[in-house]
């Protein structure tokens, strides 16, 4: 409502502005620069206009990777959001040792470096010695994520859910804790069922944190790289070649900097567009006249 109007305030954000310029804006401009040139070597480049964009947009392999990526992010959100909320609902509500312990346990996967996660799961799901892989194979079901695309997907999903659901849990838990006790008391007195309490009190009051959780989870899963790279390397075949893996293949594997630049920009715009859409939808959910 009230805005600071002292112009000296701008001085304070100047350092941040400079850091952001160096860390984000300048690299981004470099990418833009690459995307409109054909680069043969140092000092050898020609301007090609929108050619790389055309090529990238019509690349069937990119289309496949994009659908794969969307499916992956969609599944991740569909599983992690409800699961995270559900687990948060079962956590202890009173402050104390129980609650603290729960929080630490839940947060553990978040503390492990991303590439280590991939390694852990490689071992965990190995059909010969992995705890999970061996167990499933001993039950007579053949399971090998290096051989079957479906198995690779299942493994990746499990890993992603295990790794990132805690973030949703923590955010949802924080949202739940901020609901005043009086709401629950009123609901009990009104004779509301647990489901009604969830639908009319907990969910609306968590809307803010859930929006953040959803945005974070979407961005992270849409940009996922390290885990599938370590676990499957994009295979078997192209079964787990997501956008980022494909991008790296182009940029580093084939050293096609021009197409990679165009690809990066398109990738960036897609993420931006989706975030904007989610944000708008969630912001406007439940607004306007009630039914």
């Amino acid at each position, binding site marked *: 409502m009230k805005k600071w109007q002292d112009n000296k305030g701008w001085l304070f954000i100047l350092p941040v502005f400079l850091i952001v310029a160096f860390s984000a804006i300048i690299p981004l401009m470099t990418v833009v620069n690459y995307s409109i040139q054909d680069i043969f070597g140092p000092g050898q480049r020609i301007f090609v206009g929108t050619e790389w964009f055309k090529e990238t947009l019509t690349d069937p392999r990119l289309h496949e990777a994009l659908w794969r990526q969307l499916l992956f992010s969609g599944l991740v959100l569909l599983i992690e959001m409800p699961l995270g909320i559900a687990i948060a609902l079962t956590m202890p509500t009173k402050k104390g040792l129980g609650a603290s312990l729960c929080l630490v346990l839940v947060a553990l996967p978040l503390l492990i470096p991303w590439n280590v996660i991939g390694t852990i799961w490689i071992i965990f799901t190995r059909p010969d010695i992995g705890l999970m892989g061996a167990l499933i194979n001993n039950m007579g079901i053949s399971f090998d994520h290096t051989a079957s695309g479906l198995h690779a997907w299942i493994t990746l999903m499990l890993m992603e859910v295990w790794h990132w659901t805690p973030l949703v849990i923590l955010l949802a838990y924080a949202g739940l804790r901020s609901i005043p006790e*009086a709401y629950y*008391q009123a609901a009990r007195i009104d004779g509301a069922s647990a489901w009604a309490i969830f639908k009319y009190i907990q969910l609306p009051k968590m809307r803010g944190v859930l929006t953040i959780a959803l945005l974070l989870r979407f961005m992270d899963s849409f940009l996922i790289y390290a885990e599938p790279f370590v676990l499957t390397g994009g295979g078997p075949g192209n079964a787990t070649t997501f956008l980022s893996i494909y991008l790296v293949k182009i940029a580093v594997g084939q050293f096609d900097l021009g197409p990679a630049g165009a690809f990066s920009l398109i990738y960036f715009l897609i993420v931006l567009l989706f975030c904007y859409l989610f944000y708008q939808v969630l912001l406007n959910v*439940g607004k306007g*006249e*009630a039914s």
Partner: protein
Amino acid sequence: MAQICLDEIAHSYLPFPKTDEDYALKRIHNIWNDGGAYALLGPSGCGKTTLLNIISGLLKPSKGRVRFDETDVTELPPEKRNIAQVFQFPVLYDTMSVFNNLAFPLKNRGFDKAYITSRVTEIAKILELETVLHKKAEGLGADAKQKISLGRGLVREDVAAILFDEPLTVIDPQLKWQLRCKLKEIHEQLKLTLIYVTHDQVEALTFADQIIVMYEGWIVQIGTPQELFEYPDHKFVGYFIGSPGMNFLPCIMENDGVRVGRFHIPVDEKTAALGKKATGRLELGIRPLYLKIHAREMADSFQVPVQSVEDQGSCQVVTLAFSEHRIKARIAENDPAPESMAWVSFPKEWIRLFADDQLLK
């Protein structure tokens, strides 16, 4: 609606209370009548909210039983007690319309649609919410929101009592007044048992037929506004009720009156007899309103210095140095303000004596 019986209730928030100090509620034994309007009045920390939560079932008392009519409800949770509660801050279902908010308790109990619609419309009319019935509850003002909270209690015909926990805290003074009138009107109309917790004497005295004054976990007095004002059972009641509070002067009995410092104040026979029998620390109490200020000497008046005269608009408050004590007198807007000295007299019928903080009677 029901009669509420509090049978030897005591409550402590500690697991193993030992002394009296450990109890937030010391010993409460009372019966509250069906259809009565009661107010629990006291400063913060006096135990009034604890007692309210025991009645609503949000707390189980450490000792004693709670009965609604003949049913023992001590062990029952709030949803099984048929009570409704209005909280300090409006508690609403934000995503629902006003209509659905009001209908919620009925829907949960499985009433049919036609009944719900007619009942909600009826309550909305009483609360003057008809015009906003189909708006979202979220965007309304604090007073309308609080009315909706109240409405959710009123829609149920089976409620034993409606409990209010300082419901007007967040309301603007101008609107407070209207809501208070509305509440009183509803009580007269519907004859519900209402229990109202507040630290505000205006709310308590206006709203309730019987005021329960609480202090440090005890009920110090239960009475009508008049009784609290004229015969405060405890010094605390005298101090807490009325603005400014009662004047208290430490005194000793002397002949047909009491002595305060260098002054001898005559009292009537009955009061003198009570004073002579009493043991303990004796104090004289008198309301500022009943002290009389004269411009010249009168029978049984004492000349004392005037410390200040405050013009409070509709009245004036005169502060006097009385012996080594300070007393306040309240005079009308049009009365001439005394200057440096004034004569003050103590009408016998309004003098009360207190021994160890308790009224002698």
